[in-house]
């Protein structure tokens, strides 16, 4: 099977690399997007963006920015998955999409605590249509309710303020349970909640700490989104999306949003990276694209250049966010193969670009 294509035709990898270099080199505003890659791949992508004056963005940066906006405009109290698992006597699940964001959630966080700790009390505010089999979970609200409004009512009741909302008794019982927690943990997925909703939740958690201990566990989006955000922050000072077009890194969620740049015609070349999952871009504009993806990636419109890459932790060793620990960890290849890493391919492309410059 071929592992590189140009204009739909199988070619040797070096031909594809040379074509990718040509496209990127001649671009006025390239975007480096997707960024589903490990720490090494993200580092290489940032260095390449610096060199090309490109923008960088992660496929899940919108979700990442929901949590980040709350952090940088209000504040957050958070804990680790391990600590939540060991300490939480009360778990407040908020909104839908939690097991999608973290399939291990029931097993890691909702199962009985290790040792002889008292049973956890688990609540789920506005689960939408989601359900988790097994543990006893008390549901409050459903898919028709606005999570932000429910949280606002709950926060008001925790603070002892009157509300005219429905379900008084249910909400009051929940508020009492939260206040009675010894170490409560609120869990949410930013892919499902907007920033204002998360800010309301953060305010609720903060208020609860006036009397007891309560904290939060935001579930990170997949495709090493958290890891890439960390790399971008230490290398540039900023999270994605960021741009290097003016000769120094800048962060602006609107200006450097990949889909906007492409659909508006501002960007004229894209480098799409997806080494973990079969994710393809969601933009609708036509743009010459170089794709570094897993073998199974199928595009609606074939990219001009496509090169297969290995998956970190499967084909090659890598370093990436680990949802079990909430930190960056080194992962060894499960089935080592000759497939190149994103970092190695970007290094090849950068070398080819340098060769055309001399």
């Amino acid at each position, binding site marked *: 099977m071929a592992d590189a294509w140009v204009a739909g035709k199988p070619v040797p990898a070096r031909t594809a690399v040379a074509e990718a270099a040509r496209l990127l080199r001649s671009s006025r505003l390239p975007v480096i997007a997707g960024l589903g890659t490990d720490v090494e791949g993200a580092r290489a992508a940032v260095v390449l963006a610096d060199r090309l004056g490109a923008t960088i963005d992660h496929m899940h940066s919108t979700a990442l920015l929901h949590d980040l906006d709350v952090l940088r405009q209000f504040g957050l109290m958070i804990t680790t998955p391990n600590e939540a698992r060991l300490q939480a006597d009360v778990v407040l699940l908020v909104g839908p999409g939690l097991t999608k964001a973290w399939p291990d959630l029931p097993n890691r966080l909702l199962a009985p605590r290790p040792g002889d700790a008292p049973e956890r009390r688990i609540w789920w505010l506005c689960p939408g249509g989601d359900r988790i089999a097994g543990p006893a979970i008390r549901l409050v609200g459903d898919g028709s309710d606005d999570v932000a409004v429910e949280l606002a009512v709950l926060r008001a009741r925790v603070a002892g303020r009157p509300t005219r909302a429905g379900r008084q008794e249910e909400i009051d019982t929940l508020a009492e349970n939260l206040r009675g927690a010894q170490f409560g943990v609120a869990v949410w997925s930013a892919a499902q909640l907007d920033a204002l909703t998360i800010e309301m939740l953060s305010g609720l958690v903060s208020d609860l700490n006036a009397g007891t201990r309560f904290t939060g566990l935001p579930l990170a989006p997949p495709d090493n989104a958290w890891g890439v955000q960390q790399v971008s922050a230490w290398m540039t000072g900023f999270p994605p999306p960021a741009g290097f077009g003016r000769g120094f890194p800048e962060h602006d969620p609107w200006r450097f949003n990949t889909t906007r740049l492409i659909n508006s015609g501002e960007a004229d070349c894209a480098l799409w990276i997806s080494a973990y999952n079969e994710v393809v871009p969601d933009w609708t504009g036509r743009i010459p694209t170089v794709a570094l993806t897993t073998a199974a990636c199928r595009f609606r419109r074939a990219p001009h250049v496509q090169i297969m890459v290995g998956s970190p932790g499967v084909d090659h060793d890598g370093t990436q966010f*680990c949802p079990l620990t909430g930190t960056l960890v080194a992962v060894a290849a499960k089935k080592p193969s000759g497939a190149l890493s994103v970092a190695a391919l970007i290094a090849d492309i950068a070398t080819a670009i340098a060769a055309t410059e001399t």
Partner: protein
Amino acid sequence: MTVLTRIKGGRIVDPATRRDQIDDIWIRDERIADPPDGGIRADYTYDAGGKIVMAGGIDIHSHIAGFNVNTARLLLPELHRGSVPRPVDTPLSTAGWSTFETGCRYAAMGFTTVVEPAVPPSFALHAHLELADIPIIDKASLAVLGNDDFLLSLLRTSQGSAIIRDYVAWTLESTRSLGIKVINAGGAVAFKANARQFSLDDIVPHYGVTSRTILKSLQFAVQELGVPHPLHVHCNNLGLPGNVETAIETIAAADGLPMHLAHLQFYGYGREGERGFSSAAPVLAEAVNKATNMTVDVGQVMFGQTVTVSLDVLRQFNSRDQAQPRKWLIFDGDAEGAGVVPYNYRANNFYNAVQWAVGLELFLLIEDPSRVFFTTDHPNGAPFTTYPEIFALLMDAELRAQWIAKLPANAMAVTSLASIKREYSLGEIATMTRAAPAQLLGLKDRGHLRTGAIADVAVYDDDRDRARMFRAAALVFKNGELVARNGQVIRYRWGRALKVSPNYDRDIERRMRTYYEERYGLASDLMKVPQHAIPRPEPFESVPCR
């Protein structure tokens, strides 16, 4: 091929070799060399006539990498502008508050080795990845213990010092650290159990051991392992009025054995005066002067916007209402906690002005410059870029008087700063920032200009404006290579992370595997820092234990 470099005719200020004289420094490749035999000429000669020549600076306590620092970047996008351009052909040469900027700014001031002092073991890999992206300088990290269930459980069940020693050694090796730090021992655990204050003799909930017991057991383990750097201690009660008592009790608790107290300025507070907040620096300095087993660093405050980053989650939680701008992160970690709280030290604020004075009093009243270290606890008291101004203040009583005249008189009235006339000499500055730190960390081949030392050399203009002099070194050599000129980085290179590897009974590995499996349902390997994960050739360098 050997490269011979000569730094010609500068004033060598090198307290480790008791030199303060005009002389040449010769460098052969990466090391300081004897002058060659007659007739052999240098490949490169740099005229240092009228200039000061010192070993490269060593910073023993500066938060430059890891989850906390990176969170501060994400929390405060407004704090870092795209800044001064550096060589255009180096990667990320225009990034603002980045790892790249950190290395370049340190190098520009003539610093060549910096210690990140607060790495929780579970974030060690993250910290090392950031350290590996800091150019030019060498780095090291201190691993933080003292709120970890494994240690506290050992203490609760009185399992003896041997197993604790092995565990400390295993932690040092797994996290590739140069030493051990303890931060408000037990305080993060107490905070999880809803404590809002925690002192030296308070008992950690669920574990039945005191903060003092944790502190002593770690101090003893580090000592027994022969780790050169003594236990690095962040005491209880940071920042609180009257906390000088905590610092003095901790000094007494050290029991004559080596111990390092970090950012002592934040513990130099009395309760005098109408606001119940005053400088207790004279008493504290005297306690340090008497306890020759102790070393301290200052954590000087300078006025301006900064951000406080600390694993002392209890302290950070309590200070979040003073956040400026109003936003913060409070983190309950696996063992240690963390808090990132922005803060603006203002010259017209009574408390901030007292803090500023307390730091300088400690610098000036602690007599032995080899036991008081130069830090701002970057970025907690001030960013490290304020060092040049602090050097100038230490070296010039008249300059201090000018500052004091502009600060709130009621604040200055509860300090002794105005009465202190001492001025640091260049030799004392070099002791405090070169010779002594190398000795404290066990780095035998740096901090001095003896033959055989690593050729980390800083050359400064002998400018009467000491701040200008220290802000932009005329020449900086790292491992013999010229990396900066007139405060501008001209060449990138990649330094290493320094670490110790003490001997221990390998049986602890089996025990840790079992422990991680039982407590977390995870492999203990997840916490390790494998060399292959660090994207530099030879990223580490071993420092021998005693």
